[in-house]
């Protein structure tokens, strides 16, 4: 089985690079083919990279609080570009201020993200979910 392509990056004008570097190493170790766009990535850069690499998932990070503004419309644009089969995950400190995670999740799912994660998520769980989601999709599209 050839490794699945995923795209990784921190959206908007967000400079938080530490988690991003860890995510890159982590997913690579788990056998994914990671395209890491680093920090300060625009919606267009995410989508173009996904198209170019034929990525199965886009992992958007936002730590600095502007996640809500920065992510607006990304799922729609993703569909428009024909990336219907590409999973859209988002994680980090997604909104300004300490907020119950359920609220945050609802907001970002409402915006069209497939999965929403808090900053303290166990990454092992994330890969598990990712693999399941990829399988489901594989089933659907094959």
């Amino acid at each position, binding site marked *: 089985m050839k490794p699945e392509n995923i795209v990784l990056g921190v959206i908007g*004008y967000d400079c938080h690079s*530490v988690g*991003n570097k860890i995510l890159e190493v982590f997913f690579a170790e788990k056998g994914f083919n990671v395209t890491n766009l680093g920090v*300060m990535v625009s919606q267009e850069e995410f989508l173009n990279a996904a198209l170019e690499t034929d990525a199965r998932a886009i992992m958007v990070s936002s730590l600095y609080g*502007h996640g809500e503004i920065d992510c607006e419309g990304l799922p729609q644009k993703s569909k428009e570009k024909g990336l219907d089969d590409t999973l859209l995950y988002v994680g980090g400190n997604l909104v300004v*201020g*300490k907020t119950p995670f359920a609220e945050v999740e609802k907001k970002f799912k409402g915006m069209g993200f497939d999965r929403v994660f808090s900053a303290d998520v166990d990454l092992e769980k994330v890969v598990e979910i990712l693999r399941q989601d990829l399988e489901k999709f594989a089933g659907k599209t094959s």
Partner: protein
Amino acid sequence: MVDTARLTFKQFKSIRRQVLQAWPTGAGLTLEDGLAAQKSIPTEKNFAQAMKNAGEQGRVLLQPRAGVALVEEHIKLLQFLEEQGEADLLPTTIDAYTRQNRYQEAEKGIVRSREAKTSLLNGFPAVNHGVEACRQVVDRVNSPIQVRHGTPDARLLAEITLAGGFTSFEGGGISYNIPYAKKFPLKDSVDHWKYVDRLVGWYEEQGVSINREPFGPLTGTLVPPFIAITIAILEGILALRQGVRSLTLGYGQGGNLIQDIAAMKALKELAHEYFAMENFSDYELSSVFHQWMGGFPEDEAKAFSVISWGSAVAALAKAEKVIVKTPHEAMGIPTKEANAQGLRATRQMINMLEDQVFPASRELDMEIDVIKKEVKCLMDKVYELGLGDIESGLLAAFEIGALDVPFAPALCNHGKILPMRDNDGFIRVFNKGNLPLCSDILDFHREKLELRAKAEGRSVGFQMVTDDIYAISKGKLTGRPK
């Protein structure tokens, strides 16, 4: 003596014309108007004066971070932090769009915040609000205010906020690029900060002292003291060259008591040494200690403990200022209540320790010694590469990785160096990248790391780095295997 590296007034004025055009609030701003505003500010609200007094009285001043999208809310926030938080010094933390000069996006954030009746920005967009708004802020609080941000090109921000009556400005050409930007050329940010420092220097020449504070903690994540100190000294020299006189050098808590106190001592001693070498004597130097700048525990009780430990070390290290975190740190921008809680916890600790002394010891002396040697290795290289000039030297040093900040986002940073804790929790160098550390220092680090590897029954490797990054947020200093 005027430094040859100093911008001439002509150069400055010509850049200034351009700078003011970047956003409508800059139009028509005159230096004289700013000066008049500054001169009308009472001494108690002058940041430089407050830092000087703290040094003379041996006090540790408390400063929070805080900024919201709208002016009235921002004022209320600062007033709350003075009254309920017992803050000595106030901040105005700037939002992340403004930091990247994205005033258009900042405007959108202001509008949406008004609609949402809550701040959707992670700071105060001072450029968009303009000079008059800043003056209102200054007017309605009792303490000096500093602009805290992370802006590679902060020229317009400085023009507006200083004309607006703020009396301290954080940042520097290195420290506000490497940890805060991605594609910003280092030469450009250094040039832009020359402008900012020159502006501050101009105010100084007119008799108004404005405090300047390079951003010590950099990425806030396992930065070895010698790297932070070297960069602080370099930015200090760059600032002094443009006529800055009130200088506060910063350091972010590493977590090990001895190493942190050693770093704070070494920072000041080395700064004086290198400033003297560069022929500066007419300046006020103070230091600021940042409570833990890396990932925090989510649990508020645990966060209080991290805050308290930072406060204790700030007091024992005799810093002039401590920058305070909040129990919400891991979760999001703090409410004003959480911010005041962080301040009050800090106040209690600072006060309990104000008369206490961390005694001299062999261990402390040794660590000071190590740091001084390490800094010398880097500074020597900078001078060598710049043929005696630190400005071109530091640019070349970053180019080849002789200066390197761990985990930084900037592409102009090598990003090869990897830090790691030793068995006693001191931050050491695991992968030196191209850092010009001499071999006995490298051997020393390696030895220390091997002791840890042995204690943990695993070999020195990247997993340890990852474990160390998570450690404090998971309740430990050093990331050990379970």
